[in-house]
């Protein structure tokens, strides 16, 4: 719970033909993280299964595309019993998926064209009046003429100016008569003889010709009717195409479900990637597994291969620590917190996992800063009410709500009313100095704890120098404790002397000496660095401690905000009073509640994690049997 699980480097050797089944077995166990750089290229120079992997990638990509556009339901989709999928079967599946996707793609393309046609006809209908307004014989526009070349059509509006100039070179005139939905409708006319050149320019401009109804001039009503019929036909065609698309999906659905299941069986072997190397008939697979799971892994392999495999497992070597993935297994109530910890980073292997510390301190600080029985219970109830949306974060929201309610009991506050409940401890505003002092103690304790964790982490890293001499190490801790001691002596009005000076200055000298030693740069620059970093060490410890005053400040602010609401409410009549109280409380829960959450998160990340948590570990990504998209190893 306090650090990632102990891991072992696992090497598995099997016969070439057993490799896919071995991958499947590893995936079934779900505890093996393939490692791409572990096996020697000289001992095992070959990468087997490249064509199989390529087929898988191709099939997977086609299936994903089909599923993206698949609206049909896929009920009761379960993983079948694991089985091997041959390369021939995979090739057949890939080919079938290619065909299905071609059908889907064709349907989509047809729908897109129909949509364009719909827009086109729609615009034509609007253009009829403009055609009528053109002061030319429309008979000329319909059909070809011997000495004049006329085009009627549309181009993207942005292309019109350029098109006019380019057509001008070929001796053509361009006249726009309608602009809608980014398209400009044009009549283009020129003397015959340069038709080819004109056509080339029009094609380059993305020209789309419009057929002029011959009867437009004499019987515009009929033209309009025809166009409406054309639009109806387009819409009907669209419906047909949509149905065809749905039918295509339904027709293939059973096989698509089966394809998902087949690809789930293929994925483990394909996902091994470069973790799989071979020489002749022998295949080696390397990776990491939690030490406690290795016996189960061995037993599973024995059940499947009897004695046809070799499994070796050893603890990570000192130089491998950064390569080892970190497995964090937590109780159900801590799982939402893991997400928040991972936002900062994954713990390095062997490093303290801050999840529990984060959970306890976050929930406690939230309650301290936002202590109110009514507000806390409201947050908890809201968390429960929104559980479908919040999912695993429901527990977290309920926890901070209950923490807030508990501190509300201590402060004696219910929806800001301080007189409804007798405080178990005291209302923050009755003794602000005491609140601020407690916040300082809390902050000092937090900083001491995180510095201790940092010392422990650096020792695990084997970095004794940083653990002992650095400002975040033992020297830093002693300096900070010395500062606290001297500070309290001064505050208490005691006589200070060599003892107070030495508990501060001795560790400080060690820190400064360490900064000097680790910066082997020219003298001037070295002095500058030592002065600046030495000064920063002092400022940082003091400012970080003072930063925790916000814990008290927000608890005071919470009461002050409630007082402000009641003052406003007090100026109004009965109805106005309660409306203001209700709205004020909603504001406090929504606005202040969110600000407090952000402030606590800031304290955790900045004052806590940044002191001891590198967060640059590798996430554990085991081979698994799943129906989802391709995993990335």
């Amino acid at each position, binding site marked *: 719970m306090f650090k990632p699980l102990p891991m072992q480097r696992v090497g598995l050797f099997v016969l070439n033909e057993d490799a896919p089944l071995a991958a499947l077995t590893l995936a079934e166990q779900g505890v093996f993280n393939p490692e791409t750089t572990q096996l020697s290229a000289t001992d095992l120079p070959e990468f087997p299964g490249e064509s199989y992997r390529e087929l898988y990638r191709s099939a997977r990509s086609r299936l994903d595309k089909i599923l993206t556009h698949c609206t049909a339901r896929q009920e009761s989709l379960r993983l079948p019993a694991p089985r091997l999928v041959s390369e021939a079967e995979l090739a057949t599946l890939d080919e079938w998926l290619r065909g299905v996707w071609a059908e889907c793609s064709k349907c989509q393309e047809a729908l897109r064209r129909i949509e364009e046609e719909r827009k086109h006809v729609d615009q034509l209908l609007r253009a009829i009046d403009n055609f009528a307004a053109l002061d030319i014989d429309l008979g000329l526009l319909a059909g070809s003429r011997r000495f004049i070349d006329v085009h009627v059509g549309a181009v993207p509006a942005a292309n019109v100016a350029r098109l006019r100039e380019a057509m001008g070179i*070929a001796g053509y005139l361009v006249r726009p008569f309608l602009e809608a939905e980014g398209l400009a409708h044009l009549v283009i006319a020129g003397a015959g003889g340069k038709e080819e050149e004109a056509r080339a320019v029009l094609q380059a401009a993305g020209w789309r010709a419009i057929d002029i109804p011959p009867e437009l001039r004499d019987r515009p009503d009929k033209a309009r009717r025809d166009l409406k019929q054309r639009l109806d036909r387009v819409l009907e065609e669209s419906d047909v195409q949509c149905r065809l698309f749905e039918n295509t999906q339904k027709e293939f659905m059973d096989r698509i479900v089966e394809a998902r299941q087949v690809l789930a069986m293929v994925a483990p072997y394909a996902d091994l990637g470069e973790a799989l190397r071979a020489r002749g008939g022998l295949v080696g697979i390397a990776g990491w597994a939690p030490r406690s799971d290795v016996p189960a892994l061995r037993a599973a392999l024995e059940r499947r291969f009897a004695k046809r495999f070799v499994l070796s497992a050893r603890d990570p070597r000192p130089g491998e620590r950064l390569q080892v993935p970190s497995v964090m297994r937590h109780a159900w109530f801590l799982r939402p917190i893991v997400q928040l910890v991972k936002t900062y980073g994954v713990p390095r292997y062997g490093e303290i996992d801050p999840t529990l510390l984060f959970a306890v301190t976050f929930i406690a600080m939230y309650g301290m800063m936002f202590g109110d029985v009514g507000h806390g219970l409201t947050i908890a109830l809201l968390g429960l009410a929104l559980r479908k949306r919040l999912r695993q974060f429901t527990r977290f929201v309920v926890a901070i709500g209950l923490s807030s309610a508990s501190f509300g009991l201590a402060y004696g506050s219910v929806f800001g009313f301080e007189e409804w409940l007798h405080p178990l401890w005291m209302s923050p505003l009755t003794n602000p100095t005491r609140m601020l002092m407690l916040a300082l103690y809390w902050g000092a304790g937090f900083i001491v704890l995180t510095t201790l964790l940092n010392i422990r982490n650096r020792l695990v890293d084997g970095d004794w120098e940083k653990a002992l001499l650095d400002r975040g190490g033992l020297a830093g801790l002693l300096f900070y404790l010395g500062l606290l001691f001297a500070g309290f002596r001064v505050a208490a009005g005691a006589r200070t002397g060599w003892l107070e000076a030495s508990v501060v200055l001795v560790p400080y000298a060690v820190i400064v000496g360490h900064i000097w030693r680790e910066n082997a740069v020219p003298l001037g620059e070295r002095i500058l660095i030592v002065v600046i970093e030495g000064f920063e060490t002092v400022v940082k410890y003091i400012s970080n401690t003072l930063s925790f005053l916000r814990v008290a400040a927000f608890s005071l602010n919470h009461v002050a905000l409630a007082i402000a609401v009641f003052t406003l409410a007090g100026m109004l009549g009965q109805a106005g009073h309660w409306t203001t109280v209700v709205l004020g409380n909603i504001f406090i829960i929504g606005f202040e509640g969110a600000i407090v959450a952000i402030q606590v998160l800031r304290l955790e990340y900045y004052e806590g994690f940044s002191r001891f948590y590198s967060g640059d570990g590798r996430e554990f990504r085991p081979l698994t049997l799943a129906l989802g998209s391709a995993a990335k190893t």
Partner: protein
Amino acid sequence: MGPASRYAYLHGRVSLMGARLLSESVLANLSQAPPDQEAELFEAGGLRPPSEEPPLGASRSLEQRLISNLLADIVVLTRALTGGARDFLIYWAYRFDLGNLKTILRAKLYGESTANVREQLFDMGPFARLPIDELLRTEDVTELLRRLEGTPYAGIARQGRRIYDERHEPFALDAAVDRQYYAGLVKRAREAEGGGDPLRALVGNMIDRVNLVWLLRYRFAYGLPAGETYYLLIPAAYRLGGAELQRLSQLGSFEEVIANVPPPWGPLLEGAPNAAEVTLRLERDTWRLARDVMARGVFTTARAFAYLILREKELRQIRALVKGKRLAVAPELVREAMGLEAA
């Protein structure tokens, strides 16, 4: 960072980076340097010496590293910029992203394998906007353009699709992509430049150069008619305005165009035998202008852009040098490939 500190940061950065650029004479010496002196000179260009490079053709690692160097410079420069100026420099970096797009488009047209195409693509780092994996997973150009409509390149996709529907030609698609890109660059340059800004002069010089070279290629190498040639040029009016380009497009031969190019390029291009030579002479003119802006320019966006032009030139020259040395090409030919003036 306030405006004054941003200005000071950018000015200082560009000056420092500019001071690291290799001069023509250093590059010329580099082309003739014996192997034992190469290491230092390559280091000066921020690169490993050719002997430490992977074998030629094994991958695009050299090109990738050159582009990564340039993109890293753009990241540093854009850090201090805001608004239009920042957009402009970032858009400049997208050229390589569009290079990737064109590679994928060509691969789809010619049915190349995904693995082959992937090897040819550049890693755009923080400037990557193309969903490369998704595009590579498409089955054909139509699907690719459809997928592209959901990206920041939707405008290019729509234009490309209309053109592809009409003409299934790689050239038409490439031309549409390039034209759209440069039109976007001109638009962003206008938003970034102030009155009498040297940025306008730099961008104008570059756009005029591209238009002139395209005009020569489309008209006389691809044999396109005058109207189509003119349409495919970048719609922007700098020194070579619309009327000028229309006039040049209608001329009947390469020599006629060269003879009629207005100043200042007329004398510069006199006697140029082909489009490659025209490109080189015009590029040298752009580099000269960029050096001028670097030396006396005070407006930081223009100086930053001038630096990027010169840095790209330097990286291209180093690439030519590395390839030349690996293939044991004669020093004169290497110098020529590097675009250095004759000794």
